[in-house]
């Protein structure tokens, strides 16, 4: 304990991030675990509460900002990335989190999502993926499994599902990750990494909707199968998975991945590299899924590129240097003028 402690702002705790609003998700909803994870990570970031803004669209998950004791904006269906962009461009000093669902982010808001990522606006986007529309009571979403029967698709969905990670990498997102509502340590790790990233951080969170799509991720996240169905990514480490860590992933000469049995010897396996600037390897990872492959979780991609807000500030500065700070007199007199006396 040093004597200047009194001068410093009191260290925030999880409690400081809990708002006075009752949380109204269905009991057992995966959203609770994610909320708890975020409220745990927030104090660790060392950012004052007032500098944090949560922006969401519409859906169960989008009620999220009400439960955070920060600044929050619950907006309209699908538009949160755009609203957040406007906030960030006006106030680059704020840390902005976008909360969206699979319907909100990939269906009605798909356009905004991809363009925000391609611009690399410095936003942290958390997409809660429950593969269903929760708030409107159970219709298919763009991530619903092909053939899924819901109220709106009683005979099976004809749509092919989106893979959110592929969408993000295809949109040149600079940070792409995936985690799971029920794996709290991993979730917190990924959130911290997203918070540290400068640029658009896109995180897909597997989230269980126990009312309309219960157990949708069970086949990969269940304790018994998890180690075989999930590939936990670690930067600089070979792609190894399985209960005894006896399986690995390597590239065939034709550049397609294959699962191989290993016995301690990891040579020849792909080594995970988040920082590759080309998207090919990360895209390949995003495509891995069952039954032949495990699904990757963790940070797929983390590259540093200039953000839209940085470039904008820089451009403004350059023009100001060249042309001088604008003033009204100059503005009004721009172009040709003439005097009448």
């Amino acid at each position: 304990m040093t004597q200047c402690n009194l001068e410093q702002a009191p260290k925030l705790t999880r409690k400081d991030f809990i708002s006075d609003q009752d949380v109204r998700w269905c009991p057992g909803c995966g959203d609770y675990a994610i909320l708890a994870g975020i409220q745990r990570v927030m104090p660790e970031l060392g950012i004052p509460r007032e500098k944090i803004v949560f922006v969401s669209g519409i859906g169960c998950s989008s009620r999220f900002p009400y439960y955070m004791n920060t600044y929050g904006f619950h907006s309209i269906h699908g538009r949160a990335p755009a609203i957040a962009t406007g906030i960030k461009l006006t106030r680059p000093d704020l840390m902005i989190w976008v909360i969206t669902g699979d319907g909100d982010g990939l269906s009605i808001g798909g356009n905004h999502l991809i363009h925000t990522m391609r611009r690399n606006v410095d936003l942290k986007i958390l997409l809660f993926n429950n593969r269903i529309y929760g708030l409107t009571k159970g219709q298919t979403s763009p991530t619903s499994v092909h053939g899924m029967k819901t109220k709106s698709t009683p005979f099976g969905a004809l749509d092919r599902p989106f893979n959110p990670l592929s969408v993000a990498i295809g949109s040149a997102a600079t940070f792409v990750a995936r985690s799971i509502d029920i794996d709290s340590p991993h979730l917190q790790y990924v959130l911290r990494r997203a918070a540290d990233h400068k640029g658009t951080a896109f995180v897909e969170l597997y989230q269980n909707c126990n009312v309309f799509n219960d157990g949708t991720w069970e086949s990969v996240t269940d304790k018994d199968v998890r180690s075989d169905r999930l590939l936990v990514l670690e930067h600089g480490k070979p792609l190894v998975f399985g209960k005894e860590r006896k399986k690995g992933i390597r590239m065939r000469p034709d550049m397609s991945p294959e699962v191989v049995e290993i016995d301690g010897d990891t040579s020849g396996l792909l080594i995970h590299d988040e920082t590759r600037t080309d998207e090919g390897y990360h895209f390949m990872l995003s495509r891995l899924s069952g039954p032949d492959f495990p699904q990757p979780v963790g940070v797929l991609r983390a590259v540093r590129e200039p953000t839209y807000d940085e470039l904008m500030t820089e451009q403004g500065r350059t023009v100001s240097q060249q042309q001088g700070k604008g003033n009204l007199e100059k503005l009004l007199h721009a172009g040709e003028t003439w005097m009448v006396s």
Partner: protein
Amino acid sequence: MSNIKNTQSAPGDRQRPTSELETVVIRFAGDSGDGMQLTGTEFTKSVALEGSDLATFPDYPAEIRAPAGTLAGVSAYQVHFSSQEVFTPGDQPDVLVVMNPAALRINLPDLPRGGIIIANVGSFTQPNIEKAGYTANPLEDGSLSGYQVFAIDISKQVALALEGMGLTAKEVGRCKNFYALGLMFWLYNHPMEREEKSIRAKFQKNPKIAEANITAFRAGYYYGETAELFPSRFVVPPAVIAPGTYRHITGNEATAIGLITAAQLASLPLFCGSYPITPASDILHTLAMYPHYDVITFQAEDEIAAVAATIGAAYAGALGVTTTSGPGMALKSEAIGLAVMAELPLVIVNVQRGGPSTGLPTKTEQADLFQAVFGRNGECPVVVIAPATPGDCFWMAIEAARIAIRHMCPVICLSDGYLANGAEPWKLPEVASLQKIPVTFRTDPQGFYPYLREPKTLARPWVVPGTPGMEHRIGGLEKEDVIGNVSYEANNHEKMVRIRAEKIARIVHEIPNATVYGDPSGDLLIVGWGSTYGAITQAVKSLRRRGYRVSALHLRYLNPMSANVGQILANFRHVLVAEMNLGQLLMMLRAQFLVDAVGFHKIQGRPFKISEIVTKVEEILGAREQAELCTHAEVG
């Protein structure tokens, strides 16, 4: 050119007499590749510098490049200049410059008998004549006998003048418009030097093309001087214009610099989220040039993102502006509702065009009034205002910002294609005379609630994220009065709906009274809004000169309307509402004031002509006897 005053020789002219005119209307028309818009604006600039009052009307096709020589590809630019006050670009041209047969075919119906046609014969080739739908060459078949036709082979003359300059045939063809411009400069006695400088500046990056255009320009000018085609030159004396510094300004430019001015007066950054759409894009283009004025322009992926980002910016403490036209406005409506619910300041500029749907993208209309006033889900009141002239766009942009900030609400500013592209000489305001726009961001957490209200305006506090101790959540769900938490409580919703309505209604106390042009009572009042101002005012002016007891009321505030509108309407025997739609303001006036108003509608993608309004009034009040007219005219 019926209004010739006297004939005299101007100094500097060799032999030709110079006639003085009060008013001239010229229309340049050609293929969209012919550069008619440039010719028109260059001529207009010169007219302004010569001291005339003026108004312009560019009219171009929606197709970027319709096939050359076709009717669909005709582009025109009309300029009206005068030694008197000018209100409109003029009903009819006195002079029609046509660069090809299609341009002649499209524009001839507007030219009065006896009018002047200057035609580029070189382009009246058999294929072009056919493309324009003529069976014979109209310059030769006698069908133009009622007009004064000056057929000049501009194509050939330009080719001769530019011979040996090492230009491609295409480059030579592109210089035709400057030849036509030169001819007009000679005809209306404008100095060449200024224009040559301007051409040089315009083509700075390509001196060869600059020289070619100047050569073509001179060739046109000297052709006028030597060819003895025209019996006389003309001069329009300077208008009596209020002293000051002027610039030529279009409505879109005025809107853009008005918005920047507003932001500076409020000491806020300006954020403009926009998605390109005709005829609004130029506002974005203009704003994008001024990042050093604390202007952020964000070209979004669509209109929804544009308005959404703007709402985010307003939430974060900028003056948020989004600009668009009808179809884009339709996309923005849900988000505007969010701004109403979140009670954030937001300026929305809708440069109206012909609708519905994609409608007439490059043509003007005033049919988005209902959309502006009512076009959202729920009880969703917003302020709606409309500028009257291109220059007024500057003032209404500032007014929109002032109201939005003071009352924490969205304000829709309804411009239209006619104002947007039309231009007028605009007197620069004195910067020192511009009123600051006060902004208070609340920073005191003591007793703070997000939906506390300022008692007079009912505005809620503007608290920007980043302010310590005031963390709170807003959004589109209904708010508990004062507290701001989500509330579905029945009586609370009714209360909040009423408060939001009252907040907008109270703005009536802060906007100026409407003023009547003409007498405060009489036989007939013409009510208008937006860009019809010029035509209505000019019509009323000429009707009054002829003894009609007619006045005009122009509404710049449409929701709410000025406090005295009802009273004014009651003072007239007839109320005629002239608008470029099927009667939207008409219905609002009838509903709000129970007045037996009648409508006058024009939905052709073109502005009203003065004569159309005059005729309509005559129809209602009956044509006056000539004798009676004279006595009234004496009175004033």
